[in-house]
């Protein structure tokens, strides 16, 4: 009797030998090829921080619910299952994931579908609940996958400068702003793991190989999220009141060249790009382009550059006077005219600026001469690119060489450019050049990254001329009739408005360049509104109020110790979650 038992035992043993020693290598290879995955672990992108360490962009881990197994190979959620049981399983998942049962069933029970994302951005409680459910349905082909979601806690504020990501073949790439500029720096070191699948949910098997992903170091910028929020708030106000085609704003620290804030409307929310945008006829998203990099005629904001330079070169004196010629200067046809409200009397350079006299500015331009004007624009870096964005199309448009020659230059070009016509620069460029007028005459190169050294400034004006311009432009704000410009006790500020009529479209570009405090300027703000369709079109009325508000609050915020929590007013639509409310 023991013989048959022994024989069967030996046969069983031989069967084991056959499987493990004869077929072992092949079966092992087959098992491993089916279950071992060399998976790339995507590194979280580095954070983008503002000057106080507040987060402008960061990666957060979120969970997605995925189906990744053909229906016929599943043990649960299989179309052929008992109807009641199947419905119960589907209901459990649908309720936990917050997706409609019918939609879930249509995807899961479709025999042709082998892969689908059933739900994304699951909260941690949803994830926990689903994980518990899926543990009871092993072999359902449904699993949870953790991935990175880029979150922009400041929402729309500074959105153009921070940028956004798009998915290119499963890889996230920055397409705008800092996300695009720092694509390589923000991309961390991807890791990898050789794992035995994920169905078991038991994590990593170190024996198979594991390389941890490493987040890239944070990019620390000179931007200030608090000022960005204020700027956005004021741009929204301009948009609401004057309904321009677009509006842009730039805030610069005149002492260092730090870019503090930049923005424009229409804009977008990087947490869900595609919304809050309009498209042009070719389908381009208008909201993604930053109008602060679009060239405009600076209008009367150009006058301080001419006056300052003329004083600097000794072409004029502070006490010189310039006739307003009855409000019409027939130097050419059509003549140069002053705006209504400019007194018809001889004016000093300070008054020329305060009243924004076109005729006075033209005469000062002629005193400076063709070469002097050209030199002035070059020294104030009108034609230099800022280097703040990959999408800065061009720094400005200078009149062609032929327009500077002979009578063309003296009769047309010099008087025109002296009052900001016949040339174009971007609002961002205007802000940086304007800063050199009020900070003691030093031109600082734009600075966007906190670690970037502050380059030695270029001296373009003397201290005394700069002071003179500050006082003259403070007069602009403090003139009694300009009651609409915001004033507050203990804070003096100045600025220069600009209003240009576009030749072919017969509408206006309204802008205002502001600085403050007058005694020791810290901040320059430029606000530009294109084609305002409200009652007003003058720069001081359309953009001046917003510029003044942004300026005053920026100076206050810069003086205040940074806080990490309540940096952003709720009215800017700041989100701390990327789920839609």
């Amino acid at each position, binding site marked *: 009797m023991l013989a048959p038992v022994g024989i069967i035992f030996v046969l069983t043993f031989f069967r*084991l030998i056959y499987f493990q020693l004869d077929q072992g290598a092949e079966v092992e290879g087959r098992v491993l090829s089916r279950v071992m995955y060399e998976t790339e672990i995507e590194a979280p992108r580095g954070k983008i921080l503002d000057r106080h360490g507040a987060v402008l962009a960061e990666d957060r881990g979120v969970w997605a619910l995925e189906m990744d197994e053909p229906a016929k190979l599943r043990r649960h959620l299989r179309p052929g299952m008992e109807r009641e049981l199947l419905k119960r399983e589907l209901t459990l998942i649908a309720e936990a994931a917050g997706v409609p049962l019918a939609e879930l069933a249509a995807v899961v029970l479709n025999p042709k579908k082998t892969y689908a994302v059933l739900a994304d951005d699951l909260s941690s409680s949803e994830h926990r609940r689903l994980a518990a459910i899926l543990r009871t349905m092993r072999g359902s082909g449904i699993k949870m996958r953790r991935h990175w979601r880029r979150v922009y806690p400041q929402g729309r504020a500074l959105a153009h400068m921070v940028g956004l990501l798009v998915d290119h073949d499963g890889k996230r790439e920055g397409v705008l702003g800092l996300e695009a500029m720092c694509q390589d720096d923000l991309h961390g070191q991807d890791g990898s793991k050789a794992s035995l699948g994920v169905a078991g949910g038991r994590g990593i098997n170190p024996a198979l190989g594991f390389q941890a992903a490493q987040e890239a170091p944070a990019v620390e910028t000179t931007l200030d999220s608090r000022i960005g929020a204020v700027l956005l708030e004021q741009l929204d106000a301009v948009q609401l009141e004057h309904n321009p085609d677009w509006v842009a704003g730039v805030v610069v620290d005149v002492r260092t060249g730090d870019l503090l804030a930049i923005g424009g409307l229409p804009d977008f929310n990087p947490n869900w790009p595609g919304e809050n945008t309009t498209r042009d006829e070719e389908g381009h998203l208008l909201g993604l382009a930053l109008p602060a990099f679009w060239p405009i005629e600076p209008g009367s904001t150009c006058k301080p550059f001419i006056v300052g330079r003329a004083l600097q070169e000794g072409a004029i004196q502070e006490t010189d006077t310039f006739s307003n010629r009855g409000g019409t200067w027939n130097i050419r046809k059509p003549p140069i005219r002053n705006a209504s409200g400019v007194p018809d009397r001889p004016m000093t350079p300070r008054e020329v600026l305060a009243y924004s006299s076109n005729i006075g500015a033209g005469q000062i331009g002629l005193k400076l001469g063709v070469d002097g004007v050209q030199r002035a624009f070059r020294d104030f870096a009108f034609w230099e690119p800022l280097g703040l964005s990959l999408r800065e199309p061009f720094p400005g448009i200078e009149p062609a060489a032929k327009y500077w020659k002979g009578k063309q230059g003296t009769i047309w070009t010099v008087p025109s450019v002296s009052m900001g016509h016949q040339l174009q620069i971007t609002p961002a460029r205007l802000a940086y050049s304007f800063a050199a007028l009020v900070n003691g005459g030093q031109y600082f190169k734009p600075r966007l990254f906190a670690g970037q050294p502050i380059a030695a400034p270029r001296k373009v004006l003397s201290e005394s001329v700069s002071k003179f311009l500050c006082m003259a432009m403070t007069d602009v704000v403090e003139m009694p009739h300009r009651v609409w410009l915001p004033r507050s006790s203990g804070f003096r500020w100045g600025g220069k408005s600009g209003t240009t009529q576009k030749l072919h479209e017969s509408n206006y570009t309204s802008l205002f360049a502001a600085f403050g405090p007058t005694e020791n300027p810290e901040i320059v703000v430029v606000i530009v509104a294109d084609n305002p369709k409200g009652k007003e079109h003058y720069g001081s009325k359309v953009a001046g109020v917003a510029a003044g508000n942004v300026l005053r609050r920026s100076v206050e915020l810069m003086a205040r110790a940074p806080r990490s929590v309540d940096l952003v007013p709720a009215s800017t639509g700041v989100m701390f979650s990327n789920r839609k409310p």
Partner: protein
Amino acid sequence: MRFLKKTDWPIIPLALGIMWVGLTVQGSVSGGVRYPPSHVIRMVVAGLACVLCAAWGERRWRKSPWLVYGICLALLVLVLLTGRSTNNARRWIDLFGGFKLQPSETMKFAVILALAKWFGDHPKPRRMADLYRPALLVAVPAILVLLAPDLGTALTFVPMFLGVAWLAGTPWRVLRWVLILPVLLAPIALLFIQDYQQERVMSWWKQSELTLEEKADVGFHLWHSKMAVGSGGMHGFGWARGPENRLDRLPERHNDFVFPVIAEEHGFVGASLFLLLYAALGAAAIALAVKHRDPFTRLYLGGMGLHFLVHLILNVGVTLGVWPTTGLPLPMVSFGGSSMAMAGVMIGVGLALSASRGPVFTSRAWED
């Protein structure tokens, strides 16, 4: 120590070795836990049961086979009437504190005890008719177990009956018909078993030609078991590192399919050492049995050895595709508490009986 000197102590280290293997495998199956608490509790219960049964004394055991058999038979009836239904089978009775009892496991012990008693009292059956009554002792519980339904456990009664009858001195000319009859009746029995059991037999029959759908359905257990065993190779993946185990691809790996986990993670070296260790326990029990003069002790120990050998051959055979897939635990290694406790009881009773032995047979005396 006196007790250990008197008893067949070689069984103890072999049993402890097997239980240690069981502990490591259950730890691996539990996701890499060194000492899975539930299995440790089951081992302690089995150890206590072993000690208590050994201390109960040979005389008491000698008097109690029919009582034990009756109680276990009653439990089998009870489980069919009131037992908890799991996976369409009524196999467990709920006890206090979350514990469950599987009467079919206790019945295995009771059958061995009853057969040892019967053949001890009626030695050397010469005719077929002499086997009818002991066959009935096996057939009644086997039918009740089949009704549970638990085909695997029911099938283990047949070789145990044959083995004990052979140890009792039944001549081969009688025994061969008992051996051949089930083989001849097997194709007919196929018609009466349930659909899922038929599908399992068919998938076993054409196991090398399974389609993708069959591998995911009726052949799922066998396919993944063979993949696990085969992938182990010579040395295996290492403890708690087997892909089929860690990825939940091997079903019932804590219970009926525990051997593929050993083979996958410890390779041919570990699997063959385990088989030899387990076979050594059965063989040692039988070898010790044949030296005993007392028929009851001899037959009980022989039956116990056969019990372990039959379970080893059937359980491991199923995982290797030698037999059709059927649920049968591997005592002392599998997850089941009843199986573990009854293994402790069986060994304890074996030790109690062997401790009281008189003069032992020499091999020559046995041949006489």
